[in-house]
């Protein structure tokens, strides 16, 4: 049984999606989807165990040996990503498609699309075949467009449409990159590509392939100049979808970037020959500041969170651009930590939307007394965004700062700390509105239902728990980075 785990990880959600289409019964579909996400979480944790024991867990489809057939290859890095994706899915899915445009009796379509998106993201993370990556990326993206379009008002459709255009361009760029690599090597298997590329690395085709792949991935990851789809998509999507996507979709894109740079092309080529960090470092720093500054000036809570996501992605790519084991580990651990914090914050936005009816910051006046549990969840997760000790945010910042100091990059260290101050500004703005201003007259004092509060608080409490227990996150991230950078697996 356990030898089939890599296949089952993706098969469960992908095959349950059509099953939902057949079953249609709202409760049945709901229970089934929940069972699948929980099952996937169990499988991903088991895979993590296996990967940490044997280095790389390999599954060959149809028993065709690689590089002939398609293989799934799970090492510590993608096992970690699998855990993040399935954990967030299992936590947020119970809320379901409330607060969206899904008509009564058609909920099964939401669950179908969600499972496809979920399965697609898992597929991107788990596969050891670059063309397979593209296929799964398309599966998850197409489902994402549907999910975003389910938002409460018509702007959601526009947001989904513009993401569709940009996302398709991104996927096309990635496909061109993959195609060029295939042309040069005649293989699509990641491990095989890495070997065969050695001889042809410095050809112009490979350099162009790298450029295409990086631009494509950067669009999906929303690296600063290519981030325009993100705020609208996250703002107008249903809260559960925003929480899920912000915590998983960009993380998977970041994983792809790691995989392309470290496993396929090799850090020596990317950073020493092509000097990719000369582009990536300024863009990351710019993302940290422009994203945070833009977040400060937002009037809508969800849009604020979306801009803060852009800044947080800057921290991740900054870790990558430091080109060291510590830097990569800082990026990888921030995947997990940011997923907890931002997932929690978007669920808070879901609670606010449910009871207040909008997520405009003006409408959140006096939330501290109107919805104490929701407001305090926001405060704790917000402290994490700033990087206060005792939260996961601190762990990420600490890892990133020590990676920067390790290379004596004083300027970068100072900039990281300065940008944290900007996070303080936008979080304080929320706290001020919630606790220090009076609630508008006649505002209802009603807490969000447990269905919303429990997943929110699970994420928020986890963000505190993993702020203290760093061994299971930072330890794993360091092991993953070590393996990724070519250390003994």
């Amino acid at each position, binding site marked *: 049984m356990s030898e089939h785990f890599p*296949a089952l990880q993706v098969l469960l959600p992908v*095959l349950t999606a059509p099953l939902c*289409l057949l079953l249609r019964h709202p409760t049945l579909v709901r229970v089934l989807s929940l069972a699948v996400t929980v099952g996937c979480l169990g499988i991903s944790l088991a895979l993590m165990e296996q990967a940490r024991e044997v280095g790389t867990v390999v599954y060959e*489809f149809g028993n065709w040996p690689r590089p002939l057939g398609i293989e799934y290859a799970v090492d510590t890095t993608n096992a970690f990503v699998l855990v993040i994706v399935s954990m967030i899915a299992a936590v947020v899915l119970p809320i379901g498609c409330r607060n969206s445009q899904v008509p009564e009796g058609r909920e099964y379509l939401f669950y179908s699309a969600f499972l496809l998106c979920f399965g697609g993201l898992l597929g991107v993370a788990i596969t050891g075949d670059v063309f397979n990556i593209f296929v799964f990326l398309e599966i998850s993206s197409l489902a994402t467009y549907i999910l975003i379009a389910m938002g409460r008002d018509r702007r959601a459709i526009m947001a989904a449409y513009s993401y569709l255009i940009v996302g398709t361009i991104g996927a096309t760029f990635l496909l061109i990159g993959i195609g060029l690599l295939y042309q040069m090597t005649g293989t699509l298997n990641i491990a095989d590509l890495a070997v065969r590329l050695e001889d042809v690395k410095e050809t112009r085709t490979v350099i162009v392939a790298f450029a295409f792949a990086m631009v494509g991935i950067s669009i999906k990851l929303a690296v600063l100049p290519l981030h325009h789809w993100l705020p609208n998509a996250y703002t107008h999507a249903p809260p559960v979808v925003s929480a899920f996507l912000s915590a998983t979709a960009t993380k998977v894109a970041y994983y792809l970037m790691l995989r392309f740079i470290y496993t396929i092309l090799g850090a020596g080529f990317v950073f020493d020959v092509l000097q990719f960090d000369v582009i990536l470092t300024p863009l990351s720093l710019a993302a940290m500041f422009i994203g945070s500054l833009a977040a400060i000036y937002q009037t809508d809570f969800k849009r604020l969170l979306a801009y803060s996501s852009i800044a947080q992605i800057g921290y991740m790519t900054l870790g990558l651009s430091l080109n060291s084991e510590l830097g990569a580990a800082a990026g990888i651990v921030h995947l997990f930590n940011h997923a907890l914090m931002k997932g929690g914050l978007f669920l808070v936005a879901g609670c606010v939307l449910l009871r207040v009816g909008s997520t405009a910051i003006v409408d959140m006046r006096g939330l501290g007394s109107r919805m104490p549990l929701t407001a305090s969840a926001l405060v704790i997760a917000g402290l994490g965004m700033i990087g206060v000790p005792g939260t996961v945010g601190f762990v990420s910042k600490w890892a990133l700062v020590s990676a920067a100091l390790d290379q004596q990059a004083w300027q970068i260290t100072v900039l990281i700390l300065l940008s944290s101050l900007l996070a303080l500004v936008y979080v304080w703005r929320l706290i001020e509105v919630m606790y220090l201003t009076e609630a508008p007259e006649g505002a209802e004092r009603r807490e969000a239902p447990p269905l919303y509060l429990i997943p929110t608080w699970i994420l928020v409490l986890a963000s505190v728990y993993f702020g203290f227990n760093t061994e299971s996150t930072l330890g794993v991230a360091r092991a993953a980075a070590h393996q990724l950078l070519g250390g003994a697996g």
Partner: protein
Amino acid sequence: MPRRSIHEVLILRVVSKGIFPFVLLFALYVQFHGDFGPGGGFQAGVIFAAGWVLYGLVFGLTELQKALPPRWVEIGTALGVLLYGGIGVWSMFAHGAFLDYNVLDHHSTVHGQHRGVFWVELGVGITVASVMIGIFYGFAGRRRVR
């Protein structure tokens, strides 16, 4: 001569009704002969759907949906994928890897491969045909927005 709608042109109605079964038959040929010659599930599915689309164009969407309710199309979409995946899961139960056709027949791996490809391609055909018809329903069913 007043312009008539496409639904009233006698020649179109008779000819398309005559062609219709042959289009479907050709689709089935492409589907099941795909193991030995050119063809396969994707092409067969498109041809199969083309037959229904032709019917819909000539006789109208309402008539077509009477013959082939949208709910059936939705079921077909899911069923094809499940058939494909089901073969893979079957081979897992037969102690092989996912989609390992060799284990599908106890006596010969060649028969196992043949059996696997046959059913998997049928799954592809069903899904492709259903999705094609579904897309046609989606576009043809839209009312004009003023």
